[in-house]
């Protein structure tokens, strides 16, 4: 895969992740951590986590072509690394979550991960649909 493609994928992943993390943090925070308040520095948290999560996406790229099953396995590793990174960062900074909240956070990470991939897939589907429409004209023009 070309370097340019990897960068554009990571950029798309970063912006979608950051948006979803910001929205999710607001929802989860207002539901479960009402008493917690933050300063302006907290605004750096979603883009930082979005960036680190996207960078971990390098695990899904290789010069060699992956088969579909290999690509799915790499996605699984990527998700695991994101979970480990987020829980690891919180633990390292002294934050301790209750088991219940840990499950909610882990599920939220899965939700963001799946959403990012679905949004990217939907964009690819739009490209494929437009291509298929044009392919019909192309083939008719040649016959």
């Amino acid at each position, binding site marked *: *895969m070309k370097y340019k493609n990897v960068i554009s994928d990571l950029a798309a992943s970063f912006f979608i992740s950051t948006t979803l993390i910001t929205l999710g943090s607001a929802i989860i925070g207002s539901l479960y951590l009402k008493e917690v308040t933050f300063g302006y520095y907290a605004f750096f948290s979603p883009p930082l986590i979005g960036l680190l999560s996207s960078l971990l996406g390098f695990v899904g790229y290789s010069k060699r072509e992956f088969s579909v099953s290999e690509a*799915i396995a790499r996605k699984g590793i990527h998700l695991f690394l994101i979970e480990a990174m987020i829980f690891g960062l919180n633990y390292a900074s002294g934050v301790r979550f209750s088991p219940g909240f840990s499950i909610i956070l882990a599920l939220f990470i899965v939700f963001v991960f799946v959403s990012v991939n679905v949004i990217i897939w939907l964009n690819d589907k739009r490209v494929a649909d437009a291509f298929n429409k044009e392919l019909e004209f192309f083939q008719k023009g040649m016959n």
Partner: protein
Amino acid sequence: MRVTVRKIKNKEQEQVVIECVDLTQEIKDIYSYVLSKGVELPGVEDGHMAKIKLEDIYYFEAVDEKLFAYTQNKVFEIKLRLYEAERAYAPYHFIRCSKSVVLNLMQLKSISPALNGRFLAHLKSGEKVMISRQYISSIREKVFGGNKNEI
């Protein structure tokens, strides 16, 4: 454009003559279409030599230094390298879609998104072939043919 068909008696003298003012893209397309209708290439099937019509080939695939041509229900070994097939048959709408596959666009039914920005090519034979990310733009370019209204 006027089209004239003149019947002749000798099969070997069959020909198509294109008379045009300029060699436009439309004329080039007609030219490559006519060429593709007459092209046959030699292949080997179960140890026997055979002639394959180029238009019947869905795709070429390189496997272990060998090149294979896939038709509706047959596979032929071709004595060419993949890049040679890609170059030789590019005017007939064959295009590279991955490191090991050259696809006949005329036998492509549709594409659908796969993982990691790749696409799956659904062939008219029902087979599926992976399109690598790095080749999708050249395939789109070929199909859209410089159409500025593309995606």
